[in-house]
């Protein structure tokens, strides 16, 4: 009981300023800070019932101001990091034009759009940005123009028209064709490289992977903590999360059905990346005297490259990886999960929609009880339930598909044709491909290096063997679970349904999936809510492990408590920060880990290849010992 004291105290500390402000508002009946100060209490009570400040839908509360401030900070962070990771190295094209004065007239803009077209930019692919002088144009006017110009000049949901204000005298019009961000290119090239270098291990190793996971080669005396199946489940509980449900929905919404095809391709190629990094994770792990295993990308980067004579590079990459992993665990492993699971849940429990912070506090308490309180049972149960929930989810999706069996061939055709020639409004091939690859990478973490931390704990004599088991992860995560979600969304036509446009605008993927499935199985959204919360919870718990290992690598085992407290703070923040910025930040950090990881694994790929060849030869010759049962 003593250990529960701390998490309860922490959540109380986090919740108290929020609760205090709420209470103060209830008592005084006031809404925004600007109104109601000197007003009579009766009038205040009446005011509190009606919307104030004209154009807003509900009275702005202090909570919402706080949320807005957090969101702005997140947005700025996203901006800085995105400019580095998502630097568009290929395919970027731009047209810009300065205009005297304030270009607020539709015809002027039309002329500019035409000029952009003449300059060679395809209107189907461009995003527009118009910067107007702040002195001349007000915020409301800018917002109005953004909506007007957006409707006039952009087709579909993925092309945007942004109007912003700056301290200038003149206006600036920019038309941009997005290219391939460097991080996605890195991941794609890495996955292709590993697939080729390892001789399509993702195909030829598949059958063996299944028999290893089933336990045919298990030996309890091998050094390690858990057997192959347990290690795979642990890693899967981290990767199967909201990315599979919400992320896929977002991909199909913004990239069209074609994104599904590229997602599957990314999943298949990613299997080889996973193989390589988990083999290395096993090879360079540390077995502690108490039987515990410490392994992961930071170890193979620092030690492996040192063996190759690239010591300083390895040490640098190891540290970089660890830093990014810690940050990623706060973003994608934590805040994103909370955010998206809340979006799914609030569809069924509107109370939460108005009190998002409440979900944040509850989640923080549940996570705190495990990671600080040390209550193993909860974490163990959550992790074991994941395979079960996966099964339920896949079955539900299959049921929907079977019920709509007639529409399947058409859906598949749509997916394949749109993969290469996207419909109007979804951008060009590049955009769709990038979207598919991004979501796959975020979901299955292939090439990112995090799974190596979990897989290094497996008991095995041969590092390659665990790498082969790891092949199954992107397959299960992306090719099975993600595809199920995508097929449901395509077949039910949810991505195209104008009623669901608000999900797109809010980047609320989980809400879309929930609604789409509700059409087919009316009670399923409740099951989905439970599944979503469980997936989110298990992903958070598992990523807290990854993050903590990296933190310990940087700062020593004894400083873990600091990390855990930070993690809880981010659990809370995930509930209150808006979806767009959380999504973007999570993306960036997880994909960013791929930079040091793929570089290191590529350099070390020769060792992996050699070990693979040795192992495979033994396997083929029947020299590997199997369990005698």
């Amino acid at each position: 009981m003593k250990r529960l004291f701390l998490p309860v105290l922490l959540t109380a500390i986090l919740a108290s300023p929020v609760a205090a402000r709420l209470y103060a508002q209830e008592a005084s009946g006031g809404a925004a800070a600007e109104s109601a100060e000197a007003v009579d209490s009766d009038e205040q009570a009446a005011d509190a019932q009606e919307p104030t400040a004209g154009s807003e839908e509900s009275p702005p509360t202090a909570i919402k101001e706080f949320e807005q401030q957090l969101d702005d900070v997140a947005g700025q962070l996203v901006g800085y990091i995105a400019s580095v990771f998502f630097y568009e190295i290929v395919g970027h094209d731009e047209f810009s034009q300065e205009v005297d004065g304030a270009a607020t007239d539709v015809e002027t803009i039309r002329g500019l759009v035409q000029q952009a077209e003449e300059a060679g930019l395809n209107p189907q692919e461009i995003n527009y940005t118009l910067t107007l002088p702040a002195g001349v144009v007000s915020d409301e006017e800018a917002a109005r123009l953004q909506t007007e110009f957006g409707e006039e000049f952009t087709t579909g949901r993925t092309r945007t028209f942004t109007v912003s204000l700056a301290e200038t005298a003149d206006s600036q019009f920019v038309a941009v064709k997005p290219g391939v961000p460097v991080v996605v290119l890195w991941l794609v090239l890495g996955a292709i490289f590993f697939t080729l270098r390892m001789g399509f291990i993702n195909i030829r190793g598949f059958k063996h992977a299944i028999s290893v996971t089933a336990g045919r080669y298990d030996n309890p005396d091998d050094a390690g903590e858990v057997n192959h199946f347990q290690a795979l489940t642990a890693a899967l509980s981290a990767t199967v999360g909201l990315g599979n449900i919400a992320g896929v929905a977002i991909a199909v919404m913004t990239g069209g059905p074609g994104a599904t095809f590229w997602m599957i391709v990314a999943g298949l190629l990613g299997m080889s990346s996973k193989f390589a990094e988990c083999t290395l994770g096993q090879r360079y792990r540390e077995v502690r005297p108490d039987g515990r295993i410490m392994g992961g990308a930071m170890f193979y980067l620092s030690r492996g490259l040192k063996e190759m004579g690239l010591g300083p590079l390895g040490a640098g990459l190891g540290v970089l990886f660890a830093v990014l992993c810690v940050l990623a665990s706060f973003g994608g492993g934590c805040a994103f999960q909370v955010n998206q699971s809340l979006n799914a849940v609030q569809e069924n429990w509107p109370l939460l929609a108005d009190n998002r912070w409440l979900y944040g506090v509850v989640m923080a308490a549940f996570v705190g009880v495990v990671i600080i309180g040390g209550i193993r049972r909860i974490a163990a149960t959550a992790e074991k339930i994941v395979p079960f929930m996966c099964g339920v989810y896949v079955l539900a999706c299959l049921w929907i598909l079977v019920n709509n069996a007639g529409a399947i061939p058409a859906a598949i055709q749509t997916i394949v044709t749109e993969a290469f020639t996207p419909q109007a409004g979804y951008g060009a091939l590049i955009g769709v491909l990038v979207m598919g690859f991004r979501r796959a990478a975020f979901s299955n973490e292939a090439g990112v290096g995090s799974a190596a931390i979990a897989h290094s704990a497996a008991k095995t004599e041969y590092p390659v063997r665990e790498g082969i088991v790891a092949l199954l992860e992107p397959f299960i995560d992306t090719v099975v679970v993600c595809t199920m979600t995508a097929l449901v969304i395509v077949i039910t036509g949810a991505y195209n349904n104008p009623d669901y446009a608000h999900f797109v605008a809010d980047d609320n993927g989980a809400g879309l999936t929930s609604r789409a499935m509700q059409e087919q199985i009316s009670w399923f959204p409740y099951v989905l809510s439970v599944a979503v919360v469980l997936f989110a919870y298990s992903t958070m718990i598992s990523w807290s492990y990854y993050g903590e290992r990296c933190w310990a690598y940087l700062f020593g085992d004894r400083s873990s408590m600091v990390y855990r407290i930070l993690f809880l703070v981010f659990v809370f923040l995930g509930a209150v920060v808006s979806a767009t910025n959380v999504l973007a930040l999570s993306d960036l950090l997880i994909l960013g880990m791929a930079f040091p990881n793929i570089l290191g694994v590529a350099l070390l790929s020769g060792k992996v290849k050699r070990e693979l060849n040795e192992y495979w030869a033994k396997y083929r010759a029947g020299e590997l010992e199997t369990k005698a049962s």
Partner: protein
Amino acid sequence: MSWPTPKTVVVPLDFSDESERAFKTAIDVAGDASSVRAVHVLFPLDAVSPGVAWGEITDESREQAVRQEFDKLQQRLGQSGVPFDVRVGNPGLEITDFASEINADLIVVASHGYHGFKRMVLGSVAERVIRHAACDVLVLRRTDAD
């Protein structure tokens, strides 16, 4: 003036080379293997790693593994009969608590353990032990320090 031979010497072990050296030194200082009390401190288990979540790693399994390591260590050094204790908690504090419990006269500790820096910076366990010990402490410098 000669230094009185300590009756009970505590030596914390993390099975690094440095702590092995501390072990040998402790036996030399005490003169007799049975006067030396070796102790290993395990960090408190987390709840989220695969091994713990699946119940494969527990404090008992860790203690067993560590005892085996200690037996191997003794064999390597041709020693036997040194009592070995295992504790769970914060190393610096557990070591000093243990030493107080058994009224030790001396603690022999290496200045750095597994993850030391090769600089003139004291490891945090050694530093804690010095700070909290109720008895004398002998700190052995890294042999490869500058």
